């Protein structure tokens, strides 16, 4: 087991900088998820930790040891690839033992490690099959098994569940979580799926265009996002953003007017510097934080365009063509396309952002 520290890590491809000075400290045994949209640099960051990409600037330390110039194989890490990267001409057993055999590891120890990994992942009966004879989930198990036999200090996962169907993804997610508890090893996991991030991580690192936007526990990011990007990225369906103007200010709060919702007003208590009257701001409300009329501090009328009933939850997509909203609540079960109804916003369950997207607290 080992801690991983990234200090001002920069990556350039030619003159194009894709990671701009990332600072991340991952504790020993922690499960950290790098999440962000495509092209945000999360896989590049992971590959730099693995040693598969050179580091253009900054420092990476694993277990307190600087590894910038250490070969990938000597960093004490194991990586699970998105495409599994299994050796297609080898059986499962050969895939698991290949690295150890090539390095002259004693046969008894190799057999022990392979057997242990197969036992952990329940793939004992697949040992003589080749990758093409396995399902996607089984291949992913073998890929994880190959990482386990290395007995690494750090596990790296590069979007390992992207190629699996929805049901299998949930199943494998649970297995990876169980694996982390069982092995207690540091794990770094890259995904663009915020559900995976929320369910697996001890802490999440949110990335956007090569910058670390926020690092925190899943619920901290959900409840207390640092900016509009994190607020929008964490949570599904994503947070609604309503244009607003500051119309009143007192010592500890501002009143904002929702221009696109009939001039509805909401008084929002704040604890930091207050925006001036007339400032354009954005009010963030999660779909699940709309309440029944009168339950909140500000009522707004909406017109349902599409209603999605998923059984346990219903979503209403409203106000197409104007400021679109997604509303999730128990009462949405009764709503159908074309319905007019009113929802209520609570000041304490809404967030305020300035025009640049920074949070106003």
């Amino acid at each position, binding site marked *: 087991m080992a801690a991983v520290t990234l200090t001002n890590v920069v990556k350039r491809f030619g003159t194009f900088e894709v990671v701009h000075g990332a600072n991340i400290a991952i504790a020993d045994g922690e499960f950290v998820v790098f999440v962000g949209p495509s092209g945000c640099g999360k896989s590049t960051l992971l590959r730099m930790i693995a040693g598969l990409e050179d580091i253009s600037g900054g420092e990476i330390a694993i277990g307190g040891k600087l590894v910038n110039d250490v070969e*990938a*194989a000597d960093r004490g890490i*194991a990586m699970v690839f998105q*495409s599994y990267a*299994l050796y297609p001409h080898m059986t499962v057993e050969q895939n698991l033992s290949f*690295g150890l055999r090539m*390095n002259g590891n004693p046969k008894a120890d190799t057999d022990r490690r392979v057997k242990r990994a197969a036992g952990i992942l329940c793939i004992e009966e697949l040992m003589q099959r080749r990758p093409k004879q396995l399902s996607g989930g089984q291949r992913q198990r073998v890929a994880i098994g190959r990482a386990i036999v*290395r007995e690494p200090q750090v596990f790296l996962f590069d979007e390992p569940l992207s190629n699996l169907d929805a049901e299998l993804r949930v199943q494998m997610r649970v297995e990876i979580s169980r694996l982390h508890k069982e092995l207690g090893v540091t794990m770094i996991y890259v995904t663009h799926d915020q559900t995976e991030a929320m369910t697996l991580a001890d802490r999440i690192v949110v990335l956007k265009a090569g910058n670390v936007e926020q690092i925190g526990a899943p619920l901290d990011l959900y409840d207390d996002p640092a900016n509009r990007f994190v607020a929008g990225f964490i949570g599904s369906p994503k947070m609604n953003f309503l244009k607003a103007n500051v119309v009143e200010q007192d010592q500890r709060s501002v009143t904002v007017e929702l221009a696109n919702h009939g001039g509805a007003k909401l008084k929002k208590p704040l604890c930091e510097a207050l925006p001036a009257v007339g400032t354009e701001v954005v009010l963030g409300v999660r779909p699940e934080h709309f309440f029944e009329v009168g339950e909140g501090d500000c009522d707004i009328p909406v017109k349902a365009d599409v209603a999605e009933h998923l059984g346990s939850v219903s979503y209403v997509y409203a106000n197409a063509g104007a400021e679109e909203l997604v509303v999730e609540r128990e009462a949405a079960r009764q709503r159908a396309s074309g319905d007019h109804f009113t929802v209520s916003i609570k000041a304490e369950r809404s967030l305020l952002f300035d025009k640049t997207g920074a949070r106003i607290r």
Partner: protein
Amino acid sequence: MRYRNATAYRFLTPYLLIFAIFWIWPIISSFLISFQATRTLPWRFAPAFNWGRLIGDPAFFNALKNTLLILVIQVPVMISLAVVMAVLLNSPLLKARGLYRFAFFAPVVVGEVAYSAVFRLMFSLDFGIINKLLNSVGLEKIDWFSNVTPAMALIMIAVTWRWAGYNAIIILAGLQSIPEDVYEAATLDRVSKVKQFFHITLPLLKPVIVFCAVLSIIGTMQLFTEPFLITERGGPGGGTETLGLLLYRQGFRSLNFGYASAIAYTMAGLAIAITLVQLWLMREPK
């Protein structure tokens, strides 16, 4: 569906007729001719005449020996060379990759007569650059065209020069189909580049290499141009005569079409047999 099929076949008829007349019929016809005595007119049915002669003909066995010798030495050397060339072409360190690919493929598109003439000049006893190079490093000149062993070596060198690049391009396509992350996984497993080549690249290239080997075996069994043009009709004294050349000599110089047909069928049979053995040896384990 049946009507649609009939319409399709009506459109195909002109092609099928030409295919039948110029492809199917010559194959059947030459098979029938191989059972006829064709040295004198009129031709007569005599099954043992050609096939019997084949078994006891020293010229046939000489050509067979030469062909098989070229096949056994040249094909493995050329395929190995092609693999090395393909790996070099695939290297990310290589600059002007397109130029190299063109250069490797160019020998295939150069006219056979032109390339043979250049090879004759290069290997000429007195004026050839090869002998000059040998002299310059203190080695004796080699008379490439008057001695059997150098002449055979010359044929093998020429065929390798002409087809190694072609095979390298095919193998390169195979190399590029191997996913990069397989090598990355091996790198993380601390597997050296050399071991990666032998334990990952070569096994994954096996189908492509088998394909190239089969093509080369078929090509070598029919080898004609080089011994005809470079070593002047299989010289010295039939020392480089191949089955293809013997077939030509019997069919087009002696006009003994029956015997030429028997040789042609023997060549085809041998190519099929060798290819089948090779495919069996290189089969995928169940």
